[in-house]
């Protein structure tokens, strides 16, 4: 399995989804070798082998930050060098090329465009079936149809064309792949993500956001968003809608957890809208600070312009908070007991936020039913579906020696 990140070194939902998916697959008997582009410890992972792929003369590849930052190469000679994302993707391809010639396996399962070049090379070298698994496509990340970096689009297009099977994390993403790349729909299977209830950490000690919990006792209400501060996530719309909320319900806070290139723009916008006192930016958080953001809130809002899945919405429900999600998201196919809004409809967004902060009964009813729905899904369903796809791909193929094995 080719992936770009795993927790605890992840920057977002991709790493979490890969981790939980592999755990469920392994429980059902799949033997997984997970290949990452960097060197790191993964304590507690005993259900699969994790391997770092890096060029021959490099001793270690270190992640320097979030997904879209550069990687630090430490060579055997002691030299260090920084490599950008495209360079890293190419290096990963080189490394995978060497790995597949040494390893034996039945299926190549690759996640998202960053691993696509390597995945294609692996298929060429081994003759094994290739399954590409899309957690998002370039049009999602750029926030507009037919948008984004043409180089990335080219890689996605090539991988989608050459893959034997495509997995989309939602019907929403499947539709986007068909629309953006003209891929036949019957080549694409929808396998939903999930948030494993067992992976949720119990609440320990007092909530990290003490100010907010104290203010709630005084009748304040808290809305939160957790995610990267980037155009895809639709946060400028959220701020504009929130301004209308504050006009009608001044005792409302908006807690924004995350980092990204839009941060300064958003801080400025909040101030310009006159809601600087009501919006709290707390930066990128992990562990307790991250978890407690969900439970500190009365409502989680995911206003994404285009969200292939939207794992944070499930995590919010798991941690006890109802959700308002954009209709342009995969998770809205899965959870019916949620408030839903078009990402551009800031008046409706405000209407729904006001309703929740003014009516605890709405908040509670919404969460109680969403939580039941949340518990009714599991990674097991997704794993079963994937195993079926593996079997279909692996069975009935001629047993071929890896192309480079004789050399």
């Amino acid at each position: 399995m080719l992936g770009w990140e795993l927790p605890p070194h992840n920057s977002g939902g991709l790493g979490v989804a890969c981790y939980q998916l592999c755990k469920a697959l392994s429980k059902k008997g799949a033997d997984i070798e997970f290949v990452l582009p960097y060197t790191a410890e993964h304590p507690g992972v005993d259900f699969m082998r994790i391997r770092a792929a890096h060029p021959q003369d490099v001793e270690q590849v270190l992640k320097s930050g979030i997904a879209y930052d550069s990687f630090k190469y430490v060579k055997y000679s002691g030299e260090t060098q920084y490599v950008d994302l495209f360079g890293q993707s190419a290096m990963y391809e080189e490394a995978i090329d060497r790995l597949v010639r040494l390893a034996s396996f039945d299926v190549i399962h690759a996640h998202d465009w960053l691993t696509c070049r390597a995945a294609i090379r692996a298929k060429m070298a081994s003759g094994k079936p290739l399954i590409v698994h899309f957690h998002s496509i370039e049009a999602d990340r750029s926030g507009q149809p037919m948008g984004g970096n043409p180089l990335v689009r080219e890689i996605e297009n090539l991988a989608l064309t050459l893959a034997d099977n495509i997995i989309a994390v939602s019907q929403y993403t499947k539709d986007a792949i068909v629309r953006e790349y003209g891929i036949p729909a019957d080549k694409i299977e929808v396998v939903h993500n999930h948030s494993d209830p067992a992976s949720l950490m119990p609440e320990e000690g007092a909530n990290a956001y003490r100010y907010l919990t104290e203010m709630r006792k005084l009748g304040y209400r808290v809305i939160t968003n957790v995610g990267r501060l980037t155009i895809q996530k639709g946060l400028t719309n959220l701020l504009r809608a929130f301004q209308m909320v504050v006009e009608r319900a001044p005792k409302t806070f908006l807690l924004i957890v995350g980092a990204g290139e839009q941060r300064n723009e958003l801080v400025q916008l909040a101030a310009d809208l006159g809601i600087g006192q009501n919006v709290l930016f707390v930066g990128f958080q992990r562990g307790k600070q991250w978890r407690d953001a969900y439970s500190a809130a009365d409502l989680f809002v995911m206003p994404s312009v285009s969200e292939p899945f939207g794992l944070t919405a499930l995590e919010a429900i798991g941690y006890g908070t109802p959700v308002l999600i954009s209709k342009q998201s995969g998770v809205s196919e899965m959870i019916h007991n949620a408030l839903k809004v078009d990402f551009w409809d800031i008046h409706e967004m405000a209407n729904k936020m006001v309703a929740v902060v003014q009516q605890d009964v709405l908040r509670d009813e919404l969460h109680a039913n969403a939580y039941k729905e949340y518990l009714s899904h599991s990674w097991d369903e997704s794993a079963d579906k994937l195993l079926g796809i593996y079997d279909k791909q692996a069975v009935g193929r001629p047993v071929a020696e890896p192309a480079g094995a004789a050399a």
Partner: protein
Amino acid sequence: MSKTIALYLHVHQPFRVRHYTVFDIAQNHGYFDADYDDRTSNERIIHKVAEKSYLPTNERLLKLLQTHPEFRLSLSITGTVIEQLERWAPHVLQSFQELTKTGRVEIVGETYHHSLAFFYSRQEFETQVRMHREKVQAIFGQTPQVFRNTELAYNNDLAYWADQAGYKAILAEGWDKVLGWRSPNYVYRPAYTEHIRLLMKNYRLSDDIAFRFGDQGWSCWPLTADKFAHWLNSTDSAQIFNLFMDYETFGEHQWHDSGIFDFLERLPAEWLQGGNNFMTVSEAAHNLEPADYIDVPHTITWADTERDLSAWLGNNMQTSSILGLYKLEDKILATNDLALIEDWRRLQTSDHFYYMCTKWFNDGDIHAYFSPYDNPYDAFIAYTNACHDLRYRLVQKGVQL
């Protein structure tokens, strides 16, 4: 021995609340005035239902009344649907009047606004029953002799009230837990009453028509009029078959192409040729002796497997909405502002609470079909915003909340 069918059809449309947002509150009071193309447009829905159900069904019922002098039926028709027909489809209202002009179509009494007022305010309940009686007198020239409460919600208290109010009969669900070993195919007497009779819906036979008729997976499909008449004829020891259902069964719940209209057209001839007859509900109460008395201490309704009020009052969004509304009663009535009072009454219609029901929402079943909202929460938000505006209007008049 000859047997009787009491066919009773319920005609109702609510004034649905449009997508009324926080930005509408205190700006406009048009809670019920959706754009024509909107899913919550009452005008569009009344046009659609008239076309698919009311007009074609009335045409057939009138022909049946003209062809078979023995054919008769009972209708209940709420004040809210009469108002909508007067406003948007007067010819449809006329087609109902033509039925009653035959003298063989009885109108059943109920609350004007199809409300659950009986359980919240006896005074408001009686006002709405009186409003409905007066409307029926004005439109159809008859005075209801038989009572049905909204959603067939029934208990001993209601029967006692209806007895005191002089009704000859009252309608309820023939629910097994109430009937025990007894059959719904007899006339009964409610416990603690003297004169009134109780007619209980035979839900199996009624639902064969109302729900299962078009279901091709049903073992009895296709249901024909002679097959149905045969079932009834071969039922031992029965006086009366109470077939109670929504009027929209014909053409709306069961579509034209299911054959439902053929079934309706042929049933009377098939039934009458066996020497049987039809009765309106008050005729049944007058002609048939009660077989026993029925004790219903807890409220039953005609909805869902629970047959209780949980579809309307089963979650906190529903109960907080209805309690909040009735809490305003004295203040609203004291204003003497007829428009304000009417809006408050329209918000009492049970359908609003039904749209907020969450109990089957996960399964995405039939309840979704009958709701003009995407989900129960959207229904709650629009409704709550309308209630905020009601309170705003009170405050504008200097009323202290």
